[in-house]
């Protein structure tokens, strides 16, 4: 049996193209989240152990990221949200405020190109606190005193990651912290009857939100162990139904049939009886399924949805943080990614046959790295970066604190 293979060289070329050439006009709808694209590009090159960037390019990238730093703390999603410096002042800081996810991706990206000294640490942490609502949730920005954005798990995860980056290694910090208990309560309230996690409230469980909630709890040290053992009985565990969560996560796997399909209408499809049947009344009887060595297993993000490259990461990483990644058989998933969604020009597409895009290309790599892919760096599922980079970020943070050259990244303002 031949093992599916990740084509490392091809992926490096794909990411170098993303780094060095203009993205097509079609990416205009991601204009407000360019910082996240930048982070995916830099981190992908890191996971793939691509040749290091020339120092001049690193400096340019760092300057570009710092240009997006907001004078009141935090970062904007791209220069289109940033005004020339002379425009700020007189209460005009709010005209296009800093954005929470952009701030995480900017900080993460800075870690790949140098130092953290120029980050306005105290301002950023104060701004971060101002994004938290009374119910524990976070918005993505504050404008005219109003916290804007959904109440979902993404912002919770991003907020806790920013907190980790800027104060994770400081025991006593003079800057007031976010309300951790309210946040954990909010995450607990987002758990659904079927074991997953949704946007806050009783919405539908979703693998992306489930990952965000679990990663958040992981960074806060509030994940219960799957055995049910709780280290401190005084602290309520972040997940209310751990066995249900594990069941829900493993149930996201579905078998994909890559049949030779000569018709050009539907293309290869998923096992109808397993998960994606359309005609309710013509359900075939459940027959015993035979495992075979050419089986493809993809992951969906919600019950009865189609498989998509990115959910391989959201699900496998969630299981990994709970300490149960062995519950997934890695080989059929590798086959799905490397034979079906890996693209011939490098990168990964969303579904089999799709062209690659930055988001799915990154999460395809991340999914493989989480399962210990040989050609990729050891991976930290919680922060979605290499283990090496996580350690580096800690060192950079500590260095910035003790640096005499810059005063921005200080303990106090």
């Amino acid at each position, binding site marked *: 049996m031949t093992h599916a293979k990740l084509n490392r060289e091809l992926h490096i070329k794909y990411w170098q193209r993303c*780094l060095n050439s203009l993205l097509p006009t079609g990416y205009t709808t991601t204009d407000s989240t360019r910082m996240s694209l930048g982070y995916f590009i830099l981190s992908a090159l890191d996971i793939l152990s691509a040749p290091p960037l020339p120092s001049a390019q690193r400096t340019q990238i760092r300057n570009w990221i710092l240009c997006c730093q907001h004078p009141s703390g935090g970062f904007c999603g791209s*220069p289109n949200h940033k005004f020339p410096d002379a425009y700020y002042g007189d209460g005009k800081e709010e005209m296009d405020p800093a954005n929470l996810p952009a701030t995480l991706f900017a900080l993460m990206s800075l870690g790949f190109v140098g130092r953290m000294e120029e980050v306005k640490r105290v301002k950023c942490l104060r701004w971060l606190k101002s994004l938290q609502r009374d119910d524990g949730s976070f918005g993505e920005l504050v404008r005219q005193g109003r916290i804007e954005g959904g109440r979902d798990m993404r912002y919770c995860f991003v907020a806790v990651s920013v907190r980790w980056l800027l104060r994770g290694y400081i025991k006593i910090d003079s800057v007031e912290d976010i309300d951790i208990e309210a946040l954990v309560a909010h995450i607990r309230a987002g758990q659904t*009857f079927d074991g997953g996690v949704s946007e806050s409230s009783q919405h*539908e469980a979703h693998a992306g939100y489930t990952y965000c909630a679990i990663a958040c709890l992981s960074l806060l040290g509030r994940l219960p162990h799957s055995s049910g053992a709780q280290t401190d009985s005084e602290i309520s565990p972040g997940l209310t139904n751990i066995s249900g969560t594990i069941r829900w996560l493993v149930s996201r796997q579905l078998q994909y049939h890559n049949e030779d399909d000569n018709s050009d209408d539907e293309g290869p499809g998923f096992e109808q009886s397993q998960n994606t049947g359309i005609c309710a009344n013509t359900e075939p009887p459940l027959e015993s399924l035979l495992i075979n060595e050419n089986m493809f297993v993809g992951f969906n993000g919600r019950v009865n949805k189609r498989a998509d490259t990115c959910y391989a990461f959201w699900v496998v990483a969630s299981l990994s943080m709970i300490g149960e990644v062995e519950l997934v058989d890695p080989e059929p998933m590798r086959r799905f990614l490397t034979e079906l969604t890996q693209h011939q020009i490098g990168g990964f597409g969303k579904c089999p046959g799709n062209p690659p895009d930055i988001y799915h290309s990154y999460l395809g790599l991340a999914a493989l790295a989480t399962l210990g892919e040989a050609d990729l760096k050891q991976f930290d599922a919680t922060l979605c970066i290499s283990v090496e980079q996580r350690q580096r970020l800690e060192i950079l943070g500590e260095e910035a604190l003790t640096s005499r050259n810059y005063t921005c990244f200080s303990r106090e303002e």
Partner: protein
Amino acid sequence: MGKYEGDPAWDDVVPIPQDDGEGALAQIAYADEYAEAMGYLRAIVAAKEHSSRVLDLTVEIISMNPAHYTVWLYRASTIFALDHPIQQEIEWVNEVALDNEKNYQIWHHRQLLIDHLYPSISSDPVALQKLANSEIAFLTLMFNSDSKNYHVWSYRQYLVRKLNLFNASEIKSIEALLKVDVRNNSAWSHRFFIVFSNPEYATPGSAATAYDPGIPDALLDCEIEFSKAAIFEAPQNQSPWNYLRGVLRKGGRPLATQECFASEFAKIESEEEVKSSHALDFLADLWNEEGETEKADKALKLLGDKYDPIRKNYWEWRRKALKAA
């Protein structure tokens, strides 16, 4: 010459161009029209101008980049500042939403509009009903093209809370969606929300995963029957099995109350007949709860070996947990 540069109505505005600097990350090949319009928007925002030409400009930018969060926010404040008719705005938003199904900002904007409108009609039951009807009608239209659109369902939940739509007509519209596709898990999840978060009887703050003594028995019976009927229709559909478990937990009823039912879909005693892997899973949990670990173990082994081998590692892990207990 650009569109705005050549337009006398914009003569008084000096655009603020975007400065990307050298070696920017993730540079996009912006269309000239987009770059120009953004330059004018920055100037408008810096001047804090709220006028009807701002509405035109934001329409154009949104058509090129509907994910631009501050454009939406600026448009909303302009609408409120000008007292622009909310109904008219909603009609425009409808068109944009139908053209951009995956967009999130549209739904946030719509929520701001309803929040703004609500106080002016909150004491007028007729106006409230009219609003509820037109909103639900539009959401139905959205569901016609994608009945699992997450943003639309989020907005639906917001609307239910805002207008207190925990009612029979809401349940009916879910049933209509499930009639078309009994595997629509979004509809199942919404049903759970409507039934178990109804403020009339649900205990405030009761988690979805917790027992709630406030739920009336008759209602539990009704929901159990509803999920059973859907399981009969499609035994290998995960959604109603999950729903059934959820209902039993809410009602504090043991899985064993459904042993006869589940056994219809999975017999493992003398003659083996399995129509649903979810039934086997349900029975494994049930027998474990009842202390019948041997039967539970047999069910889990069958799942791993035969009926759901792609999750073999998981079923084996469950078997180990059985033995350890």
